[in-house]
Protein backbone atom coordinates (compact mmCIF):
# COMPACT_ATOMS: atom_id res chain seq x y z
CA UNK A 1 0.00 0.00 0.00
CA UNK A 2 1.35 3.39 -0.95
CA UNK A 3 0.88 6.22 1.49
CA UNK A 4 2.52 8.82 -0.75
CA UNK A 5 0.43 11.96 -0.63
CA UNK A 6 2.09 14.44 -2.98
CA UNK A 7 5.21 16.31 -3.97
CA UNK A 8 5.67 19.39 -1.82
CA UNK A 9 7.96 22.38 -2.30
CA UNK A 10 10.41 22.65 0.57
CA UNK A 11 10.47 26.42 0.25
CA UNK A 12 6.93 27.67 -0.33
CA UNK A 13 4.88 24.56 0.46
CA UNK A 14 3.09 24.34 -2.90
CA UNK A 15 1.93 20.79 -3.57
CA UNK A 16 2.04 18.88 -6.84
CA UNK A 17 0.62 15.58 -8.04
CA UNK A 18 3.07 12.72 -8.37
CA UNK A 19 4.92 13.28 -11.66
CA UNK A 20 8.51 13.39 -12.96
CA UNK A 21 9.12 16.96 -11.78
CA UNK A 22 11.65 18.19 -9.25
CA UNK A 23 11.37 21.96 -9.03
CA UNK A 24 8.59 24.18 -7.79
CA UNK A 25 7.13 26.22 -10.63
CA UNK A 26 6.61 29.20 -8.35
CA UNK A 27 9.84 29.60 -6.44
CA UNK A 28 12.26 27.02 -7.90
CA UNK A 29 12.49 25.30 -4.53
CA UNK A 30 13.18 21.57 -4.52
CA UNK A 31 10.21 19.21 -4.34
CA UNK A 32 10.04 16.47 -1.75
CA UNK A 33 7.81 13.42 -1.42
CA UNK A 34 5.36 13.73 1.49
CA UNK A 35 3.36 10.89 3.01
CA UNK A 36 0.12 10.38 4.83
CA UNK A 37 1.54 8.42 7.77
CA UNK A 38 -1.83 8.03 9.45
CA UNK A 39 -2.97 5.90 6.50
CA UNK A 40 -0.47 3.24 7.60
CA UNK A 41 -2.68 2.40 10.56
CA UNK A 42 -1.51 -0.07 13.19
CA UNK A 43 -0.23 -2.72 10.81
CA UNK A 44 3.26 -1.39 10.10
CA UNK A 45 5.17 -3.01 12.95
CA UNK A 46 8.66 -4.26 13.76
CA UNK A 47 7.34 -7.81 13.39
CA UNK A 48 5.98 -7.16 9.90
CA UNK A 49 9.27 -5.64 8.79
CA UNK A 50 11.31 -8.47 10.33
CA UNK A 51 9.17 -11.06 8.56
CA UNK A 52 10.22 -9.74 5.16
CA UNK A 53 13.32 -10.55 3.02
CA UNK A 54 16.51 -8.78 4.08
CA UNK A 55 16.67 -5.96 1.57
CA UNK A 56 15.72 -2.27 1.52
CA UNK A 57 12.19 -3.02 0.34
CA UNK A 58 11.21 -4.37 3.73
CA UNK A 59 10.40 -0.70 4.42
CA UNK A 60 8.55 -0.26 1.11
CA UNK A 61 5.59 1.56 2.68
CA UNK A 62 7.98 4.45 3.38
CA UNK A 63 9.43 4.50 -0.13
CA UNK A 64 7.67 6.35 -2.96
CA UNK A 65 6.73 3.58 -5.37
CA UNK A 66 3.42 1.93 -6.17
CA UNK A 67 3.28 -1.81 -5.56
CA UNK A 68 6.43 -3.92 -5.79
CA UNK A 69 9.80 -2.65 -7.04
CA UNK A 70 10.61 -3.51 -10.64
CA UNK A 71 14.27 -2.53 -10.40
CA UNK A 72 16.79 -3.47 -7.72
CA UNK A 73 14.61 -5.85 -5.76
CA UNK A 74 17.64 -7.30 -3.92
CA UNK A 75 19.35 -4.06 -2.92
CA UNK A 76 20.27 -3.17 0.63
CA UNK A 77 20.52 -4.66 4.10
CA UNK A 78 24.25 -4.26 4.27
CA UNK A 79 26.16 -5.08 7.48
CA UNK A 80 26.23 -2.80 10.48
CA UNK A 81 29.62 -3.72 11.92
CA UNK A 82 30.52 -3.23 15.57
CA UNK A 83 33.98 -1.73 15.19
CA UNK A 84 35.76 -3.06 18.29
CA UNK A 85 39.28 -2.46 17.01
CA UNK A 86 38.54 1.04 15.87
CA UNK A 87 36.85 1.76 19.20
CA UNK A 88 40.19 1.13 20.92
CA UNK A 89 42.14 3.34 18.54
CA UNK A 90 39.67 6.21 18.79
CA UNK A 91 39.03 5.73 22.51
CA UNK A 92 35.27 5.44 22.23
CA UNK A 93 32.83 3.02 23.83
CA UNK A 94 30.35 2.06 21.13
CA UNK A 95 31.16 2.49 17.44
CA UNK A 96 29.54 1.04 14.34
CA UNK A 97 30.29 1.12 10.64
CA UNK A 98 27.28 0.94 8.33
CA UNK A 99 29.02 -0.71 5.43
CA UNK A 100 27.53 0.11 2.04
CA UNK A 101 30.90 -0.64 0.45
CA UNK A 102 29.27 -4.03 -0.07
CA UNK A 103 25.87 -2.85 -1.26
CA UNK A 104 24.45 -5.04 -4.02
CA UNK A 105 24.95 -4.89 -6.96
CA UNK A 106 27.51 -2.10 -7.56
CA UNK A 107 29.20 -1.68 -4.18
CA UNK A 108 27.91 1.69 -3.22
CA UNK A 109 24.99 3.23 -1.42
CA UNK A 110 23.80 4.54 -4.79
CA UNK A 111 22.06 1.24 -5.51
CA UNK A 112 19.46 2.27 -2.95
CA UNK A 113 18.51 5.53 -4.61
CA UNK A 114 18.78 4.12 -8.11
CA UNK A 115 16.44 1.21 -7.46
CA UNK A 116 13.78 3.65 -6.27
CA UNK A 117 14.43 6.10 -9.12
CA UNK A 118 14.36 3.44 -11.83
CA UNK A 119 11.33 1.63 -10.40
CA UNK A 120 9.60 4.99 -10.46
CA UNK A 121 10.85 5.71 -13.99
CA UNK A 122 9.31 2.42 -15.16
CA UNK A 123 6.03 3.40 -13.47
CA UNK A 124 6.10 6.72 -15.32
CA UNK A 125 6.67 4.86 -18.61
CA UNK A 126 10.23 5.99 -19.36
CA UNK A 127 12.40 3.67 -21.44
CA UNK A 128 15.66 5.61 -21.23
CA UNK A 129 17.26 6.62 -17.94
CA UNK A 130 20.23 8.87 -17.28
CA UNK A 131 22.26 10.56 -14.58
CA UNK A 132 24.91 13.13 -13.80
CA UNK A 133 27.46 11.33 -11.72
CA UNK A 134 30.75 11.47 -9.91
CA UNK A 135 31.11 7.74 -10.58
CA UNK A 136 29.22 5.57 -8.14
CA UNK A 137 25.88 6.69 -9.47
CA UNK A 138 27.01 6.06 -13.06
CA UNK A 139 27.85 2.45 -12.26
CA UNK A 140 24.65 1.90 -10.38
CA UNK A 141 22.42 3.44 -13.05
CA UNK A 142 24.19 1.49 -15.79
CA UNK A 143 23.97 -1.86 -13.98
CA UNK A 144 20.43 -1.55 -12.72
CA UNK A 145 19.16 -0.13 -16.03
CA UNK A 146 20.66 -3.02 -17.97
CA UNK A 147 19.18 -5.56 -15.60
CA UNK A 148 15.79 -3.89 -15.95
CA UNK A 149 15.96 -3.70 -19.75
CA UNK A 150 16.23 0.08 -19.84
CA UNK A 151 18.51 2.16 -22.07
CA UNK A 152 20.90 4.42 -20.17
CA UNK A 153 23.12 7.45 -20.56
CA UNK A 154 25.60 8.43 -17.87
CA UNK A 155 27.32 11.80 -17.76
CA UNK A 156 30.55 12.09 -15.78
CA UNK A 157 33.41 14.56 -15.30
CA UNK A 158 36.28 13.70 -17.68
CA UNK A 159 38.84 13.02 -14.93
CA UNK A 160 37.20 10.21 -12.95
CA UNK A 161 38.98 7.22 -11.46
CA UNK A 162 39.43 4.31 -13.92
CA UNK A 163 37.49 1.95 -11.66
CA UNK A 164 34.44 4.13 -11.86
CA UNK A 165 34.58 4.58 -15.63
CA UNK A 166 35.08 0.87 -16.32
CA UNK A 167 32.59 0.06 -13.58
CA UNK A 168 29.92 1.86 -15.59
CA UNK A 169 31.02 1.12 -19.15
CA UNK A 170 31.03 -2.64 -18.70
CA UNK A 171 27.23 -2.60 -18.50
CA UNK A 172 26.96 -1.31 -22.06
CA UNK A 173 25.72 2.13 -21.11
CA UNK A 174 26.40 5.29 -23.13
CA UNK A 175 29.07 7.16 -21.18
CA UNK A 176 29.56 10.83 -21.94
CA UNK A 177 32.52 12.54 -20.26
CA UNK A 178 32.21 16.29 -19.83
CA UNK A 179 35.18 18.61 -20.00
CA UNK A 180 34.59 20.25 -16.65
CA UNK A 181 33.83 19.55 -13.03
CA UNK A 182 30.85 17.75 -11.59
CA UNK A 183 28.95 21.01 -11.26
CA UNK A 184 29.34 21.53 -15.01
CA UNK A 185 28.03 18.01 -15.62
CA UNK A 186 25.10 18.72 -13.35
CA UNK A 187 24.17 21.92 -15.13
CA UNK A 188 24.40 20.32 -18.56
CA UNK A 189 22.25 17.41 -17.43
CA UNK A 190 19.63 19.78 -16.13
CA UNK A 191 19.48 21.29 -19.62
CA UNK A 192 19.46 17.90 -21.34
CA UNK A 193 16.66 16.78 -19.05
CA UNK A 194 14.62 19.76 -20.26
CA UNK A 195 15.05 18.65 -23.85
CA UNK A 196 15.08 14.85 -23.98
CA UNK A 197 12.28 12.62 -22.67
CA UNK A 198 14.47 10.68 -20.29
CA UNK A 199 14.24 9.90 -16.60
CA UNK A 200 17.30 11.63 -15.14
CA UNK A 201 17.57 9.98 -11.75
CA UNK A 202 19.03 13.04 -10.10
CA UNK A 203 17.12 15.67 -12.06
CA UNK A 204 13.47 15.08 -12.94
CA UNK A 205 12.94 12.00 -10.78
CA UNK A 206 15.18 13.28 -8.00
CA UNK A 207 12.44 13.63 -5.37
CA UNK A 208 11.83 9.86 -5.60
CA UNK A 209 15.50 8.97 -5.99
CA UNK A 210 16.50 10.86 -2.87
CA UNK A 211 13.95 8.98 -0.76
CA UNK A 212 15.88 5.76 -1.37
CA UNK A 213 18.56 7.07 1.01
CA UNK A 214 16.21 6.68 3.92
CA UNK A 215 16.54 2.90 3.75
CA UNK A 216 20.17 3.26 4.85
CA UNK A 217 19.09 4.83 8.13
CA UNK A 218 16.09 2.52 8.61
CA UNK A 219 18.52 -0.40 8.48
CA UNK A 220 20.87 1.22 10.99
CA UNK A 221 18.03 1.56 13.47
CA UNK A 222 16.71 -1.97 12.94
CA UNK A 223 20.23 -3.42 13.16
CA UNK A 224 20.89 -1.57 16.41
CA UNK A 225 17.95 -3.54 17.83
CA UNK A 226 15.29 -0.97 16.95
CA UNK A 227 17.18 1.95 18.43
CA UNK A 228 18.23 5.26 17.00
CA UNK A 229 21.95 5.99 17.47
CA UNK A 230 23.05 8.98 19.53
CA UNK A 231 25.47 10.21 16.87
CA UNK A 232 25.70 9.64 13.11
CA UNK A 233 28.51 10.90 10.88
CA UNK A 234 27.46 11.26 7.25
CA UNK A 235 29.50 12.17 4.15
CA UNK A 236 28.20 15.21 2.29
CA UNK A 237 28.35 16.18 -1.35
CA UNK A 238 24.97 17.75 -2.14
CA UNK A 239 23.95 17.26 1.50
CA UNK A 240 21.04 15.02 0.53
CA UNK A 241 22.00 11.95 2.61
CA UNK A 242 22.30 14.11 5.70
CA UNK A 243 18.72 15.31 5.31
CA UNK A 244 17.36 11.86 4.50
CA UNK A 245 19.01 10.21 7.51
CA UNK A 246 17.29 12.85 9.60
CA UNK A 247 13.95 12.27 7.87
CA UNK A 248 14.22 8.48 8.30
CA UNK A 249 14.91 8.74 12.01
CA UNK A 250 12.02 11.15 12.52
CA UNK A 251 9.70 8.81 10.60
CA UNK A 252 10.64 5.81 12.73
CA UNK A 253 10.15 7.85 15.90
CA UNK A 254 6.78 9.12 14.67
CA UNK A 255 5.66 5.60 13.78
CA UNK A 256 6.71 4.31 17.19
CA UNK A 257 9.29 1.91 15.75
CA UNK A 258 12.12 3.47 17.80
CA UNK A 259 12.35 5.84 20.72
CA UNK A 260 13.65 9.33 20.14
CA UNK A 261 17.33 9.24 21.11
CA UNK A 262 17.93 12.88 20.25
CA UNK A 263 20.23 11.74 17.44
CA UNK A 264 22.84 14.32 16.49
CA UNK A 265 23.82 14.33 12.82
CA UNK A 266 27.31 15.37 11.71
CA UNK A 267 28.31 16.13 8.13
CA UNK A 268 31.71 15.29 6.67
CA UNK A 269 33.42 17.00 3.75
CA UNK A 270 36.85 17.16 2.18
CA UNK A 271 38.62 20.46 2.86
CA UNK A 272 39.08 20.89 -0.91
CA UNK A 273 35.32 21.01 -1.33
CA UNK A 274 33.68 22.02 1.91
CA UNK A 275 31.00 24.66 1.27
CA UNK A 276 28.52 23.06 3.68
CA UNK A 277 31.06 22.39 6.46
CA UNK A 278 32.26 25.96 6.16
CA UNK A 279 28.76 27.36 6.51
CA UNK A 280 28.20 25.36 9.70
CA UNK A 281 31.56 26.35 11.19
CA UNK A 282 30.98 29.99 10.32
CA UNK A 283 27.50 29.93 11.83
CA UNK A 284 25.68 31.03 8.70
CA UNK A 285 23.13 29.31 6.51
CA UNK A 286 24.52 30.85 3.33
CA UNK A 287 26.33 28.32 1.20
CA UNK A 288 29.02 29.85 -0.99
CA UNK A 289 29.68 27.68 -4.05
CA UNK A 290 33.33 26.65 -4.49
CA UNK A 291 35.50 25.11 -7.19
CA UNK A 292 36.20 21.61 -5.95
CA UNK A 293 39.75 20.32 -5.54
CA UNK A 294 40.00 17.03 -3.63
CA UNK A 295 40.78 13.35 -4.11
CA UNK A 296 37.31 12.62 -2.73
CA UNK A 297 35.75 13.03 -6.15
CA UNK A 298 32.47 11.43 -5.15
CA UNK A 299 31.97 14.35 -2.75
CA UNK A 300 33.22 17.05 -5.10
CA UNK A 301 30.08 19.11 -5.53
CA UNK A 302 30.98 22.77 -5.24
CA UNK A 303 27.40 24.00 -5.44
CA UNK A 304 25.46 21.66 -3.15
CA UNK A 305 21.72 21.91 -3.78
CA UNK A 306 20.74 20.46 -0.40
CA UNK A 307 23.45 22.33 1.49
CA UNK A 308 21.03 24.73 3.09
CA UNK A 309 18.85 21.91 4.41
CA UNK A 310 21.81 19.81 5.54
CA UNK A 311 23.11 22.84 7.43
CA UNK A 312 19.76 23.13 9.19
CA UNK A 313 19.61 19.42 10.05
CA UNK A 314 23.03 19.59 11.68
CA UNK A 315 22.14 22.68 13.67
CA UNK A 316 18.72 21.48 14.78
CA UNK A 317 19.88 17.97 15.70
CA UNK A 318 22.78 19.25 17.78
CA UNK A 319 25.38 17.96 15.35
CA UNK A 320 28.26 19.74 13.68
CA UNK A 321 30.40 19.64 10.57
CA UNK A 322 34.10 19.29 9.85
CA UNK A 323 36.40 18.73 6.91
CA UNK A 324 39.65 16.86 6.35
CA UNK A 325 42.64 17.21 4.03
CA UNK A 326 43.52 14.73 1.29
CA UNK A 327 46.26 13.26 3.49
CA UNK A 328 43.83 12.83 6.38
CA UNK A 329 41.45 11.08 3.97
CA UNK A 330 44.13 8.59 2.92
CA UNK A 331 45.17 8.03 6.55
CA UNK A 332 41.57 7.32 7.49
CA UNK A 333 41.06 4.88 4.60
CA UNK A 334 44.13 2.99 5.85
CA UNK A 335 42.99 3.18 9.46
CA UNK A 336 39.62 1.64 8.63
CA UNK A 337 41.21 -1.05 6.47
CA UNK A 338 43.86 -1.90 9.07
CA UNK A 339 41.52 -2.00 12.06
CA UNK A 340 38.26 -3.40 10.70
CA UNK A 341 39.25 -4.95 7.38
CA UNK A 342 36.94 -2.63 5.49
CA UNK A 343 38.23 -0.93 2.36
CA UNK A 344 36.24 2.25 1.85
CA UNK A 345 36.46 4.66 -1.03
CA UNK A 346 37.69 8.20 -0.51
CA UNK A 347 34.31 9.37 0.79
CA UNK A 348 34.61 6.79 3.57
CA UNK A 349 38.01 8.24 4.40
CA UNK A 350 36.40 11.64 4.65
CA UNK A 351 33.72 10.36 7.00
CA UNK A 352 36.03 8.47 9.33
CA UNK A 353 38.59 11.29 9.22
CA UNK A 354 35.95 13.79 10.26
CA UNK A 355 34.53 11.46 12.93
CA UNK A 356 38.03 11.14 14.41
CA UNK A 357 38.43 14.89 14.39
CA UNK A 358 35.06 15.50 16.04
CA UNK A 359 35.81 12.93 18.74
CA UNK A 360 39.20 14.56 19.41
CA UNK A 361 37.54 17.97 19.56
CA UNK A 362 35.10 16.63 22.14
CA UNK A 363 32.12 17.42 19.92
CA UNK A 364 31.20 13.75 19.80
CA UNK A 365 31.33 12.25 23.32
CA UNK A 366 33.36 9.08 23.78
CA UNK A 367 30.76 7.17 25.82
CA UNK A 368 27.72 7.23 23.51
CA UNK A 369 26.80 5.23 20.42
CA UNK A 370 28.30 6.48 17.16
CA UNK A 371 27.57 5.30 13.63
CA UNK A 372 29.97 6.08 10.79
CA UNK A 373 28.49 5.91 7.30
CA UNK A 374 30.66 4.16 4.71
CA UNK A 375 28.94 4.55 1.38
CA UNK A 376 31.34 3.25 -1.27
CA UNK A 377 34.05 0.70 -2.01
CA UNK A 378 37.79 1.37 -2.04
CA UNK A 379 38.37 -0.84 -5.06
CA UNK A 380 36.85 1.93 -7.16
CA UNK A 381 39.29 4.58 -5.97
CA UNK A 382 42.57 2.64 -5.93
CA UNK A 383 44.41 5.72 -7.18
CA UNK A 384 44.01 7.31 -3.75
CA UNK A 385 46.06 4.71 -1.90
CA UNK A 386 48.01 2.74 -4.47
CA UNK A 387 51.31 4.43 -3.59
CA UNK A 388 50.77 4.03 0.13
CA UNK A 389 50.46 0.30 0.65
CA UNK A 390 53.16 -2.03 2.01
CA UNK A 391 55.78 -2.75 -0.68
CA UNK A 392 55.23 -5.92 -2.69
CA UNK A 393 58.23 -8.26 -2.39
CA UNK A 394 58.70 -10.44 -5.45
CA UNK A 395 60.64 -13.70 -5.03
CA UNK A 396 61.43 -16.90 -6.93
CA UNK A 397 58.98 -19.79 -6.35
CA UNK A 398 61.24 -21.54 -3.84
CA UNK A 399 61.31 -22.01 -0.11
CA UNK A 400 64.95 -20.95 -0.20
CA UNK A 401 63.89 -17.56 -1.44
CA UNK A 402 61.12 -17.21 1.09
CA UNK A 403 63.01 -18.23 4.25
CA UNK A 404 65.23 -15.14 4.51
CA UNK A 405 62.18 -12.94 4.03
CA UNK A 406 60.29 -14.71 6.82
CA UNK A 407 63.34 -14.53 9.09
CA UNK A 408 63.75 -10.85 8.43
CA UNK A 409 60.08 -10.25 9.33
CA UNK A 410 60.46 -12.29 12.48
CA UNK A 411 63.54 -10.31 13.47
CA UNK A 412 61.67 -7.08 12.81
CA UNK A 413 58.81 -8.44 14.94
CA UNK A 414 56.32 -8.00 12.11
Amino acid at each position, binding site marked *: MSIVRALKCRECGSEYEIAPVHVCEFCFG*PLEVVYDYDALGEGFTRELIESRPQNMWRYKELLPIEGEPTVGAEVGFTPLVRAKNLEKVLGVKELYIKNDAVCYPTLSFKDRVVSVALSKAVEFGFTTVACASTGNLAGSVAANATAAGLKSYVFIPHDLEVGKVVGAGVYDTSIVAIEGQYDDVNRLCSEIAG*KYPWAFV*NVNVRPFYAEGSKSYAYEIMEQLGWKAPKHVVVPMASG*SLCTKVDKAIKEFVKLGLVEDAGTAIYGAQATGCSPIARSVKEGTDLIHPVKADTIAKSLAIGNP*ADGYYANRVMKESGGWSEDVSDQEIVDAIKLLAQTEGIFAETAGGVTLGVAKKLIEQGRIPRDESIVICVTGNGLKTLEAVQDQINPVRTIKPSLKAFDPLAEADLAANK
Partner: protein
Amino acid sequence: MTIQVRIPTPLRRLTDGADEVSIEAENVGALIDNLEAAHAGMKDRLCDDKGDIRRFVNVYVNDEDVRFLKGKSTILKEGDEVSIVPAIAGGAL
Protein backbone atom coordinates in the same frame (compact mmCIF):
# COMPACT_ATOMS: atom_id res chain seq x y z
CA MET B 1 23.01 43.97 -27.38
CA THR B 2 21.11 40.75 -27.88
CA ILE B 3 21.62 37.85 -25.56
CA GLN B 4 20.35 34.31 -26.05
CA VAL B 5 18.76 33.01 -22.85
CA ARG B 6 18.04 29.33 -22.30
CA ILE B 7 14.82 28.79 -20.36
CA PRO B 8 14.39 25.79 -18.06
CA THR B 9 11.28 23.61 -18.20
CA PRO B 10 9.52 25.12 -15.15
CA LEU B 11 9.60 28.60 -16.74
CA ARG B 12 8.52 27.68 -20.25
CA ARG B 13 4.90 28.30 -19.40
CA LEU B 14 5.87 31.98 -19.30
CA THR B 15 7.55 31.86 -22.71
CA ASP B 16 4.79 30.02 -24.58
CA GLY B 17 6.89 26.89 -24.45
CA ALA B 18 10.04 28.43 -25.96
CA ASP B 19 13.26 26.90 -24.59
CA GLU B 20 15.31 29.88 -25.74
CA VAL B 21 14.52 33.58 -26.01
CA SER B 22 16.46 36.65 -27.18
CA ILE B 23 16.74 39.53 -24.73
CA GLU B 24 18.46 42.91 -24.95
CA ALA B 25 20.58 43.68 -21.89
CA GLU B 26 23.84 45.21 -20.67
CA ASN B 27 24.16 43.11 -17.54
CA VAL B 28 22.49 40.24 -15.70
CA GLY B 29 20.28 42.48 -13.57
CA ALA B 30 18.96 44.29 -16.63
CA LEU B 31 18.50 40.97 -18.35
CA ILE B 32 16.19 39.81 -15.59
CA ASP B 33 14.23 43.08 -15.75
CA ASN B 34 13.88 42.82 -19.52
CA LEU B 35 12.89 39.17 -19.28
CA GLU B 36 10.15 40.29 -16.92
CA ALA B 37 9.01 42.98 -19.39
CA ALA B 38 8.81 40.43 -22.20
CA HIS B 39 7.47 37.52 -20.16
CA ALA B 40 5.59 38.75 -17.11
CA GLY B 41 6.13 36.68 -13.99
CA MET B 42 9.79 35.88 -14.64
CA LYS B 43 11.27 38.17 -12.03
CA ASP B 44 9.20 36.78 -9.18
CA ARG B 45 10.40 33.33 -10.04
CA LEU B 46 14.05 34.27 -10.34
CA CYS B 47 14.44 36.80 -7.54
CA ASP B 48 13.39 37.04 -3.92
CA ASP B 49 11.67 39.99 -2.21
CA LYS B 50 14.94 41.91 -2.01
CA GLY B 51 15.58 41.46 -5.71
CA ASP B 52 18.45 39.01 -5.17
CA ILE B 53 18.67 35.87 -7.28
CA ARG B 54 16.91 33.10 -5.37
CA ARG B 55 18.89 30.46 -3.51
CA PHE B 56 17.68 27.69 -5.81
CA VAL B 57 18.21 29.51 -9.06
CA ASN B 58 21.51 29.33 -10.89
CA VAL B 59 22.28 31.80 -13.66
CA TYR B 60 25.18 31.02 -15.95
CA VAL B 61 26.90 33.33 -18.42
CA ASN B 62 28.77 31.27 -20.99
CA ASP B 63 28.79 28.29 -18.64
CA GLU B 64 30.07 30.23 -15.61
CA ASP B 65 27.87 30.64 -12.55
CA VAL B 66 27.29 34.37 -12.02
CA ARG B 67 28.02 33.81 -8.32
CA PHE B 68 31.63 33.37 -9.42
CA LEU B 69 31.39 36.49 -11.59
CA LYS B 70 29.75 39.70 -10.42
CA GLY B 71 26.26 38.43 -9.70
CA LYS B 72 23.59 40.71 -11.11
CA SER B 73 26.24 43.28 -12.08
CA THR B 74 27.94 40.80 -14.42
CA ILE B 75 28.44 42.61 -17.73
CA LEU B 76 27.05 40.99 -20.86
CA LYS B 77 28.42 41.39 -24.37
CA GLU B 78 27.12 40.57 -27.82
CA GLY B 79 26.92 36.85 -28.41
CA ASP B 80 26.97 35.86 -24.72
CA GLU B 81 24.79 32.93 -23.81
CA VAL B 82 22.84 32.96 -20.58
CA SER B 83 21.39 29.85 -19.05
CA ILE B 84 18.92 29.68 -16.18
CA VAL B 85 19.10 26.37 -14.33
CA PRO B 86 17.30 25.25 -11.20
CA ALA B 87 19.69 23.98 -8.56
CA ILE B 88 19.71 20.21 -8.41
CA ALA B 89 21.22 17.83 -5.98
CA GLY B 90 24.09 15.71 -6.89
CA GLY B 91 25.04 12.41 -8.31
CA ALA B 92 26.94 11.92 -5.13
CA LEU B 93 25.73 12.07 -1.59
